[in-house]
């Protein structure tokens, strides 16, 4: 691996592990808690956000020297809203059931702080390719985070995974898992698991862990 490749890989992995939007930065909690009732919902929400993230980061990066500093946030929002509209129509055309399940949260991708944060913090000061690599990593990290919640909530809340029944007809659904408290419980449990794992890592002292968290 050449140094350039290693740097790109590092940029990509940053969003998946070190700066994971869901488990480390705890950003974008609104869709994270609201749409992760099933794995399909979580996956499609993650993919939609990833697409908007990559496309808008690319455009912001290309136009970074053109956009006046004073109106940059408004410009980013317009760019993001454009791609969200695209995603909105695409999902509506592909699957109306999914569109109904995700509801207003598709349009609310516009105000997802991960996207605006990436545009402001990274894409506005990086070349298009690194910006897209970083955005892909972040999007993948967000998708993984949503999927981690969605899988647990769907298995316990409905006994299915991606709509496939796992335990047969006599499964006892845990009603709380498809309710909002279930989202908080599962998110908390995942955060706990990661914090514990980080602390167990050989050589990781407590100070470093708290810094990461």
């Amino acid at each position, binding site marked *: 691996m050449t140094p350039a490749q290693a740097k790109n890989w590092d940029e990509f992995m940053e969003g998946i592990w070190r700066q994971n939007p869901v488990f480390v930065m705890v950003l974008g909690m609104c869709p994270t808690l609201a749409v992760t009732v099933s794995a399909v919902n979580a996956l499609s929400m993650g993919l939609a956000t990833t697409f908007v993230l990559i496309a808008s980061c690319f455009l912001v990066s290309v136009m970074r020297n053109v956009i006046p500093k004073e109106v940059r946030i408004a410009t980013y929002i317009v760019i993001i809203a454009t791609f969200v509209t695209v995603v909105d129509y695409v999902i509506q055309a592909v699957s109306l059931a999914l569109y109904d399940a995700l509801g207003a949260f598709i349009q609310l991708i516009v105000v997802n702080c991960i996207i605006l944060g990436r545009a402001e913090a990274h894409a506005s000061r990086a070349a298009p390719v690194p910006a897209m690599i970083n955005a892909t990593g972040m999007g993948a990290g967000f998708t993984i985070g949503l999927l981690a919640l969605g899988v647990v909530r769907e298995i316990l809340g409905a*006994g299915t995974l991606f709509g496939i029944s796992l335990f047969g007809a006599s499964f006892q659904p845990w009603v*709380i898992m498809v309710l909002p408290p279930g989202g908080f419980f599962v998110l908390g449990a995942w955060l706990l698991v990661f914090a514990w794992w980080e602390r167990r890592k050989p050589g990781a002292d407590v100070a470093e862990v708290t810094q990461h968290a």
Partner: protein
Amino acid sequence: MTATIEIRTAPHIRGPRTVERIMRQVVLSLAPICAFFVYQYGLSAAASLLAVTLACLGTERLFARTGSQSGDISDWSATITGILLALSLPPGFPLWMGAVAGFVAVALGKALFGGIGFNVFNPALVGRAFVQAAFPVSIAAYTPSFLPGRFTEFIPSSLAWPLMMPADNAAWLHAMHLDALAGATPLAKWKFDGVLAGAGELLTSLSGHMAVGPSPLLILVCGAYLALRRYLDWRIPAAILGSAGLTAWILFGFDAVRYPNPFFMLFSGGLILGAVYMATDMATSPVTPRGMWVYGALIGLLTVVIRYYSGLPEGVMYAILIGNAATPLIERITQPTPFGVGEARKARRAGTYPLHPSYISREEAGASAPKKRIFRNKPKRTP
């Protein structure tokens, strides 16, 4: 020869009342209640007590080993959580759900806050609230007590496979020539069918085929033992029962047809168990004597309000959880006055404090009002 001086912070006088000792006494006082519960419901109740308590102990051990929480299973607190949780669940509650409740009670209710003494909410009630939200059907499925053959066979619903739906008890009850309604608790019967249970039946739980928990009379006796030995404060149960009774009595006075008599309110459901054993948890109730009265009054009032005006037949659990949440606030507004401060405050209010001989009033000094300072603690600038 020099004596070793050990330097440590107060308190310096140590009594024999350690956490372990108090908890062991509470467990001992719960033993007769458990025995009567098993006598009422047989094998299933025994299995439920065992499963829930073991789940609590296992979780406590797990978190004591992996985390940095204080306490371990040797302090008996997890045992109390397990027993109380099992007593508050229906005896035919599926064993695997009971184990889930026990796990959630200790993990979410206690370990995450830092272990014994740090929990904000009563762990047993946290576990119960979780399974109430997760399995609302199973937690409402009571079966009658004193069934024939209760010592030789389980209630069918308790032996469900893990993660699987429990069997319906209705067919099983039908085979014994009992209708499904026999399984309803007195509160549910009152709320949904308008049937009031008699006083003697409620108090002793000895009449046949009533779906009730352990006898309120027995709980009161065991609680009185603890209160006499000062292992729990009598003010909290007294305040809860007084406030619930008073509220129910006032409403009964207004409309005796719509509202049941206060006696029924006091001795049905889990109010006695909650008032004596759950609300008095030392870590989650106020320490100030006046605060205990406020806390108890709040819980009693909320219990009656939830029972009368919500869709739920029982409200003790949520009332105590809300009381736990309000505890820090109650403690803050009911701080006792330190010795000596009250006199000084009274004197200041009356304006009779003696003036210093060299005091000159503002008028005498001919000075104008001093400039108001916005920040009181900011030192005055001296030129």
